[in-house]
């Protein structure tokens, strides 16, 4: 048979180093084992977070000092579309503007009977998040100002608004 002829064997001996089937088998098995690892590792994709430019404001009762809920609508100053529309809220996420100089963003907080203006003064810094998500702004809140129709007073508890953090920045005490 041709497959077992001396010529064929010489050919194979000449062009192949036919040793160590155990290692070869090991290589083959290794490839198969590595496949899922490689595919899994390579399919990683970054998850970008939403709502990362908003100040977190907790509403506190000025009477009890505890968290409270307020039914309110919130608008950006000069905007007709709302951030919140007649919702019962204990925490507000208020997006800060990017293109004001100096950096100040005004909001109007309306209830059925009255309205207050709430302003945030802040500095912004360009940060790089990841290859997938690119850039974001981080903020440092320097001051909060407000009218006093429904709001008694406010305090900054955590001045940094940073991507990936979920912390209350400002406490607003309401009557």
């Amino acid at each position, binding site marked *: 048979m041709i497959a077992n002829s001396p010529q064929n064997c010489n050919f*194979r*001996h*000449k*062009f*192949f*180093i*036919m*040793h*160590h*089937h155990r*290692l*070869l*088998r*090991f*290589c*083959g098995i*290794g*490839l*198969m084992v*590595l*496949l899922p*690892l*490689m*595919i899994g*590792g*390579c*399919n*990683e994709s*970054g998850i*970008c*977070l*939403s*709502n*990362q*430019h908003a100040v977190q404001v907790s509403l506190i009762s000025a009477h009890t000092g505890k968290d409270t809920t307020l039914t309110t609508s919130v608008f*950006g100053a000069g*905007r007709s579309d709302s*951030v919140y529309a007649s919702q019962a809220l204990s925490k507000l996420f208020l*997006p*800060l*503007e*990017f*293109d004001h100089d100096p950096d100040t*963003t005004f909001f109007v907080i309306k209830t059925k009977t009255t309205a207050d203006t709430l302003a945030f003064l802040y500095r912004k810094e*360009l*940060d*790089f998040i*990841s*290859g*997938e*998500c*690119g*850039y*974001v*702004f981080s903020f440092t809140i320097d001051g909060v100002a407000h009218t006093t129709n429904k709001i008694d007073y406010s305090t900054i508890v955590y001045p940094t608004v940073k991507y990936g953090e979920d912390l209350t920045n400002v406490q607003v005490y309401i009557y």
Partner: protein
Amino acid sequence: MAKTSPMFRFIFINLVLALPLVPTMGQQSDSIPGRRAQSIAVGIDLAPFIIRTYDDSRTGLCVSGRYGLRDKIFGVAELGYENVDFSNNQTVTKNETDLTAYQYAHTSNGSFLRAGLDFNFFKPYDEPYNKDFVGVGFRYGYAYQEQQSPAFIIGNGYWNDYSGGGGSSSVNSHWIEVVFALRTELFRNFYAGWSMRGKMLVHSGHTGVMEPYAIPGYGKNNGNLTVGFTYSLEYQIPFGKRQ
């Protein structure tokens, strides 16, 4: 025509790579007693081409050189290049009123060098002249790249978005690797092998705000630890004989 799944493409490529291993399984050695070549080997890493099939933002090339210092100790140098051309247009939706858009483009060109030693623990008692390799090694890696983000938009969701663009910046990165590798001789002086590498980024210094999306030779910049793979084809140049 439906687009082929990256996973199927990847499996197909790996099966093609594994095919040359099959015909030699179960064969015996024809090594000539009394002769053993100490040599230099040059090779190419197929991993950048494989990566390209499922991540078309990255284009790379890596060549390697290996020098037998001792019977079981090899000096290894790997030199490569990688281009990254990445863009993203992603909208994250939390609810109807909370839409955040991420639009971002990134380009990078860089080169890298990895150098270190490999130690062969493979002892084929029945085949004393077998030159296959099963062992471990370590590498020091260095990469230099120029990167820029020609355009990006930071989405706000309520107020105006911010549009920007950055100039180029340079990045110097250093890392170390621990390598586990297998290599076998397919034809006389032609080797195929793969390696799995644990990599630790020691330092990545950049002149701008932007961090690299991927570091040449290291991989995607998702943290200080990552795992890498290589599939190598090598030609060994015999330059000496030992009795």
